[in-house]
């Protein structure tokens, strides 16, 4: 059993097959997946802009980081759930799609980003609420956050445009073909 077999087994489960073949469920899940970046992207953008000192300057950035966090999690969980449904339904053609791999890697980078900047930015109100403005680390974190999310949505879109170089590799000709 290789990776391709596992990927096929996943998308061939009854659940993912019906998901893939449904004329209505698939586009609804896809639309929901996409709406989440539209509905909850504003929270991310506002946080990043505040860390860059571009908006709402009268309030400490830590306040915005803290207050927007619960809603960001809601959007993230809905998005991931829809993403798993979409990815599972077509996993055999996704697992070796370079754009899918890039998207998943960037998503992992979002997690790493959160861990790396927790001590210096997101979990450090004293540093980011400095009256002189957020420190350089906060600005780097904000720019990286925007770059990562644009990268994720771009790679996500590009998944659909990838064609495998040779989807049906030719097998070696059998030694002797007996015609009936």
């Amino acid at each position, binding site marked *: 059993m290789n990776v391709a077999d596992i990927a096929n087994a996943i998308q061939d489960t009854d659940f993912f097959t019906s998901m893939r073949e449904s004329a209505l469920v698939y*586009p609804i899940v896809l639309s929901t997946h996409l709406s989440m970046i539209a509905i909850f992207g504003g929270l991310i953008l506002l946080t990043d802009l505040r860390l860059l000192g571009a908006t709402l300057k009268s309030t400490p950035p830590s306040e915005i980081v803290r207050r927007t966090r619960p809603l960001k999690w809601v959007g993230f969980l809905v998005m991931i759930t829809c993403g798993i449904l979409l990815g599972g339904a077509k996993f055999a053609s996704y697992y070796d799609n370079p754009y899918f791999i890039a998207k998943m890697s960037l998503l992992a980078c979002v997690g790493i980003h959160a861990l790396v900047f927790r001590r210096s930015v997101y979990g450090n109100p004293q540093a980011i609420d400095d009256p002189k403005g957020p420190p350089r680390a906060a600005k780097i974190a904000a720019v990286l956050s925007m770059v990562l999310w644009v990268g994720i*949505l771009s790679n996500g879109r590009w998944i659909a445009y990838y064609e495998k170089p040779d989807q049906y590799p030719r097998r070696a000709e059998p030694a002797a073909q007996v015609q009936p």
Partner: protein
Amino acid sequence: MLQINYDPATNPLNNNEWSFPLFECIHIAMFAMSVGTIALVDFRLLGLTLRKYTAAQLLKATSMWTLAGLVIVISSGLVIATTDPLSYYYNPAFRYKMLMLVLAILYNYTIHRKVAMSQAPAAVNVLVAGLSLAMWMSVVFLGIFYAFT
């Protein structure tokens, strides 16, 4: 059938592999920015986030980003539509999308703005914000359903 004196095959977007998806990415990133900043005000009207601010403060803080996003999302959308104008024109999902888009923009700059800038009763805020979220989500949904109809 509508006839237009234009051959989509001459469109540069139909003649290389990367420009069409590139415009789609710009389109998606910019509706994330425009709708996302509108939704932020809606979440405040619903009382779900940043209660330290008034909806009016959040609207003022984000209105420039909303407008910039809307301008770019519509421009990139027009570019995308040039790749096959007639198929968009005759697609019912696309027609509903345009209708909802016009309604959502009008709503955003009239009722939505007026309510966000004033101290309206909570019930009014919830209704106005809910309708705003529903309208903008329907635009996104119809954009996807274009490809499935």
